[in-house]
C-alpha cells in the first residue's frame, strides 16, 4: 500500500511487515513473509488465497491465537494506538470478543455441543458486570432475532445440535456481533454450508455490516464469495501479499500474473464449456526453503530470468492498489501486461481440442428405476411405546437414473438430499427397499456380496475426502495396487501396474514410495483416481471429486477425468453440490431434493432454462466471481426440511416462491417433457 494510506485516519487496523514461522519437524516453515496491508474502516475486506497461502495464519495472528509452534518473527499489527503483537495476554483477552470478534469456518465443530446458546452468549458478555443477567439474555435474544433465527426467545435455550448448519452459522454470527465489535473476522464463513445457505449468509453479513457500521475481514478461497461480499481484496500466495486493491480493480483489472491466473481458473467464470479447464501448472513452493526472487516465478507463465533472482517491487497504482511484480515497473516493465480480459494467460498448452465427442450407446451402463432406500429411525418396541406408525425415513424416494458408457451424469443436491446414499446403494453398500438397479442389463440390487464382488471390478468409487479415504500406513504404490489384492488377481506385475497407473494419472514415479500425509490434496486425489481405475472399470462413481481442492488444481483433476473417459469410454456418475464444476464436465444433470429427483436433463438446457424452481434457486445461488454481477436478493429462503417431517405435498413447497395450494397437498409426479427432460413440479417454469 502507498505510505500515505497507512496513516490515514480511516485505517482501523494496519498489518505492517508481519512475518510468522512455524517450527515443524521438516524445518522452519516461513508461513508469512513480511506482509503489510491496511484494513479500512467500515469496509468488507477479503483475504483470498489457496491452501498454504497463509490467509488463515494472518487471521489468527491478529487475535494472538496462533498455534503453539508458531513464532512471530517481526512486524506490527496496529489497532488504534496499540500494537497487538506487543500486547500482554490480558490485554489481548480484553480485545478478543469485545473489539475484534470472529465468525468461524465450520459451525458444526466451532460451537461447544454441551452448552446452550444462551449460556455461550452469556459467557461472551462476562466483561459487563453492570449488566444484569436478564438484560444480557435480552441482548442475546435480540441479536439472535437480528440474524434471522425464528423464535429467538425459545431457541436461545437450545443446544447447537438442535440447529441446522445454516442456523448454526447465523447463531455464530450473532455470538460474534453480540458485543458490538469494531472489527469482525470471518474465516471461510460459508465453506461448510450449502449453496442456498451460502447466499443467505453472504446477504446477512452484508446487511449487518451496513446496519452496525462494522468493519469485516473475510478470509476465503471462494472467489465468488469475495466478489459478491467484499469492498477491498488482498490476494495472498505462499505467505506473501502479491496484490491488493478495491474489489473491481482486482476482478476486472488484475495486475499480478497469479491473480490473473486464479481468476481464469475459476470454472464459474468460464462460460465456454467446450474447452478444457485452465490450470496453473506446478505446486505451491516449499516454504521451508529460502526464497530468491518472486515467490510465484516457478509457476508463472511470464517469468523472466530476473524474476527468479530479485524480489519484485510493490508497484502502487492509485491510492489503494498495489501488486508485486517486475512486469509492472522498473527495468522489466512490460506495457503490454496485463493483457485484455478476454486473453487467457494460463493453460494455453492444454487448451488444445474441444471436449471429445462421446460415443453414445443405446444400452445404458447403469440403469436405476423407482429406487427406494429407507433408514430405520426408531426400534420396533420404542415405536410401539410412543405410538409411532412410521419407523422409517425415505432417504431415496422413487429415483430413476441412467448412465451410458462414455457419459457423465452429474447428481446434484444439497447436504441431506440423499445423493451419496444413492451412490452407495448403486454400489451395493446400502440395502434398498424397492425398485431396481441394473448394471449392463443385469439386476444387481441387494445382490449378496459374494456374487456382487466380481462386479466391483467394473464399478469403482472415488471417495469424497481425498486424503482421509487413503490408509495412512500404506505407500502410494501399495494403495494403487490394492484393488488387485482385494480381488485376488495374480499373475500381474504389481510394480509395473503401479507405474502404469501412476503415469495414467500423471503422478511422477518417485511419488510411489510416499505416504498419504506427504501428498498435497491434488496428488492424493490422483491416487484416488488411480485406485478407482486400477481394474479398468466401466463405471466410476465419484463423490465430490473436487471437494477440498484449490481452484488451480481442480481443473487438472477434471481434465484428467475427461481424458480418461475419452480414452476408455468410462461412464461417470458424479455426486456433487458444486454447480460450476458439474456444468463443465457433465452431459446430463439430475437434481435431487430430499431424496427425490426433481429435475433431470441435458446440462446446457438445465442451466439455460431450469424447469423446477429449486433448480433455478441452485443455479442462481452460486455467487459469481464478478463484483458487477452481485445479486440484490436471495432467490429462496429457509432450509432443507428434515427427512423426519417430509412435507405432504411437494417436498420443496415450503421454500418455493411459486408454491400454490396444490403443491402443499399433492406430491408432483415425474413428468417427461417433449425434449426428454424430466421434472417433478406441478407448475414448471418457463
Amino acid at each position, binding site marked *: 500500500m502507498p505510505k500515505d494510506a497507512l496513516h490515514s485516519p480511516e485505517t482501523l487496523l494496519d498489518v505492517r511487515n508481519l512475518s510468522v514461522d512455524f517450527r515443524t519437524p521438516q524445518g522452519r516453515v516461513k508461513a508469512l513473509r513480511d506482509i503489510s496491508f491496511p484494513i479500512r474502516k467500515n469496509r468488507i475486506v477479503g483475504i483470498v488465497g489457496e491452501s498454504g497461502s497463509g490467509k488463515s495464519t494472518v487471521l489468527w495472528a491478529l487475535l494472538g491465537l496462533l498455534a503453539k509452534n508458531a513464532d512471530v518473527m517481526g512486524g506490527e499489527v496496529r489497532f488504534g494506538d496499540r500494537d497487538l503483537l506487543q500486547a500482554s495476554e490480558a490485554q*489481548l483477552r480484553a480485545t478478543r*470478543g469485545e473489539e475484534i470478534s*470472529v465468525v468461524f469456518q465450520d459451525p458444526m465443530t466451532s*460451537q*461447544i455441543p*454441551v452448552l446452550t446458546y444462551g449460556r455461550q452468549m452469556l*459467557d461472551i458478555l462476562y466483561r459487563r458486570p453492570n449488566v444484569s443477567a436478564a438484560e444480557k439474555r435480552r441482548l442475546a435474544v435480540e441479536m439472535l432475532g437480528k440474524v434471522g433465527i425464528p423464535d429467538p426467545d425459545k431457541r436461545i435455550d437450545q443446544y447447537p445440535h438442535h440447529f441446522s448448519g445454516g442456523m448454526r452459522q447465523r447463531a455464530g454470527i450473532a455470538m460474534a456481533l453480540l458485543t458490538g465489535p469494531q472489527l469482525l473476522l470471518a474465516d471461510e464463513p460459508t465453506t461448510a454450508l450449502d449453496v442456498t445457505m451460502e447466499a443467505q449468509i453472504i446477504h446477512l453479513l452484508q446487511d449487518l455490516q451496513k446496519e452496525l457500521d462494522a468493519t469485516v475481514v473475510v478470509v476465503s478461497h471462494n472467489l465468488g464469495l469475495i466478489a459478491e461480499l467484499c469492498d477491498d481484496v488482498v490476494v495472498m500466495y505462499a505467505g506473501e501479499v502479491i496484490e491488493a486493491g478495491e474489489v473491481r480493480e482486482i476482478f476486472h483489472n488484475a495486475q499480478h500474473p497469479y491473480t490473473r491466473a486464479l481468476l481464469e481458473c475459476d470454472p464459474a467464470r468460464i462460460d465456454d464449456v467446450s474447452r478444457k479447464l485452465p490450470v496453473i501448472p506446478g505446486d505451491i513452493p516449499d516454504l521451508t526453503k529460502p526464497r530468491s526472487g518472486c515467490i510465484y516465478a516457478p509457476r508463472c507463465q511470464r517469468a523472466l530470468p530476473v524474476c527468479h533472482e530479485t524480489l519484485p517491487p510493490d508497484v502502487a497504482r492509485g491510492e489503494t492498489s498495489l501488486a508485486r511484480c517486475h512486469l509492472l515497473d522498473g527495468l522489466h516493465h512490460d506495457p503490454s501486461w496485463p493483457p485484455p480480459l478476454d486473453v487467457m494467460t494460463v493453460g494455453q498448452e492444454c487448451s488444445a481440442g474441444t471436449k471429445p465427442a462421446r460415443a453414445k450407446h443405446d444400452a445404458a451402463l447403469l440403469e436405476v428405476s423407482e429406487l427406494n432406500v429407507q433408514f430405520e429411525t426408531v426400534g420396533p418396541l420404542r415405536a410401539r411405546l410412543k405410538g409411532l406408525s412410521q419407523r422409517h425415513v425415505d432417504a431415496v424416494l422413487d429415483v430413476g437414473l441412467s448412465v451410458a458408457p462414455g457419459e457423465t451424469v452429474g447428481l446434484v443436491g444439497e447436504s441431506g438430499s440423499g445423493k451419496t446414499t444413492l451412490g452407495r446403494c448403486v454400489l451395493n453398500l446400502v440395502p434398498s427397499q424397492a425398485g431396481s438397479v441394473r448394471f449392463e442389463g443385469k439386476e444387481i440390487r441387494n445382490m449378496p456380496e459374494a456374487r456382487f464382488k466380481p462386479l466391483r471390478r467394473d464399478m469403482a468409487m472415488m471417495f469424497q475426502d481425498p486424503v482421509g479415504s487413503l490408509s495412512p500406513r500404506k505407500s502410494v504404490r501399495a494403495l494403487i495396487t490394492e484393488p488387485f489384492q482385494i480381488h485376488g488377481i495374480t499373475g500381474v506385475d504389481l510394480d509395473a501396474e503401479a507405474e502404469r497407473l501412476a503415469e495414467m494419472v500423471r503422478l511422477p514415479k518417485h511419488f510411489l514410495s510416499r505416504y498419504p500425509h506427504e501428498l498435497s490434496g491434488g496428488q492424493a486425489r490422483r491416487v484416488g483416481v488411480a485406485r478407482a481405475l486400477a481394474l479398468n472399470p466401466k463405471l466410476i462413481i465419484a463423490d465430490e471429486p473436487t471437494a477440498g481442492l484449490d481452484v488451480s488444481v481442480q481443473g487438472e483433476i477434471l481434465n484428467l477425468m475427461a481424458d480418461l473417459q475419452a480414452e476408455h469410454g468410462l461412464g461417470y456418475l458424479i455426486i456433487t453440490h458444486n454447480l460450476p464444476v458439474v456444468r463443465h464436465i457433465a452431459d446430463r444433470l439430475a437434481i435431487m431434493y430430499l431424496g427425490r429427483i426433481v429435475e433431470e436433463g441435458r446440462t446446457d438446457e438445465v442451466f439455460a432454462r431450469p424447469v423446477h424452481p429449486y433448480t433455478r434457486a441452485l443455479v442462481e445461488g452460486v455467487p459469481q466471481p464478478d463484483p458487477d454481477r452481485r445479486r440484490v436478493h436471495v432467490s429462496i429462503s429457509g432450509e432443507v426440511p428434515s427427512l423426519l417431517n417430509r412435507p405432504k405435498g411437494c417436498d420443496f413447497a415450503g421454500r418455493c416462491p411459486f408454491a400454490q395450494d396444490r403443491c402443499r397437498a399433492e406430491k408432483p409426479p415425474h413428468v417427461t417433457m417433449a425434449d426428454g427432460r424430466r421434472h417433478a413440479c406441478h407448475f414448471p417454469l418457463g
Partner: protein
Amino acid sequence: MLYYLTKRLGLSAVVIGLVVLVLFSLLHFIPGDPATIALGPRATEEAIARYAEKMHLNEPVWRQFLIYIGNALTGDLGLDVFSDRPVTAIIMERICFTLALVGAGMGWAMLLGIPLGCLAAVKPNSWLDRVTGVLSVGTIAVPSFLVSIWALLIFAVQLRWLPAIGAGEPGQIGDQLMHLILPAFAIGLSWVGYLARMVRASMLEVMGENYIRSARAFGLQPRRVIFGYALRVAILPTITLIGMGFGGMISSTVFAEIIFARPGLGKLIFDAVMARNFPIVQGAVLVATGLYILVVLFSDILIAWFDPRVRESL
C-alpha cells in the same frame, strides 16, 4: 428418557437375577450336601436334618430357587448360620462403613486426580505434567494392600498421627473420620493416577477442538475455558471410568478392611468365607453386585445429564 430408564432398570434386574442364579447354583454344584457344607463337617445328623427342613432343602431345586428369589425380593436374605440373625440386618450394619470408605477413597482421588489431569493437559510437557505422569504410573503400579500396610506402618505405628485399626467409636463423627483417613488414602491412591491420566488424555484431545479455540477467540478467561468448556466435555469418559471403578474399589476394600480391621462388607465376606457361613457370603455378594450395578447405572445417567446429545437420544 423414561424408556431408557425402564430399559436399563430391566437389564439391571436381569443381571441381578443371573447373579442370584450363579450364587444359588454354587451351593448345589459343590459336591456334598448343602446342609453339611453350611454347618461344617462336625455337625450332628439331627442338626443337619433340622437345617435341611428349615432351609427347604428337601424341596425340588427349582422350588428352592423360587423361594430364595421370593425371599430376596422381600429383603430376606436368610439367616446367619452361627448367630441365627437375619443376614439382611448384618449386612445393613456393615454396609455404611464400606460405602463411607469407597466414597471417601474415590472422593479424594477425584478431588486430586481430576484437577491434576487438567493442569497437566493445559501445559503439556511442563514440569507439573512430567511429575504427574511419573507419579500416576507409580501409584497405579502399587497394589492397594501394599499401600495399606505401609500407610499403617508409617502414619499409625511410627508417627502415631492416626489410629491404626477399627472404624472409630460409634456416634463420634470426628473419631470415625480419623479412622477413615488411612484406609481411604490406601484405596484411593492408585485412582489419583488413573484419573489424572484419563482426564489428561481426554483434555488434551478436547483442548484441540475448534470450540475451545472459539471460546478463546471470544476472550473468555482461561479458567472458564478450561473448567467450564473443556472439562465439561472431557469429563464424560472419566465418569464412565469412575462408575466402573467403584466395582474395583469394592474389591479393594476387602484388603483395606482386613488390614485396618475395619468392619464392612469386604471384611464380612472374608470372615464368612473363612467360616463357611454361606448365607452371609451369598447375601453380601448379592448386595455388592447390586451396588455396583446401581453405580454404573447412575454414571450412565450422569453422562446423559451432562451431554444433551446423549440425553435426547435416549
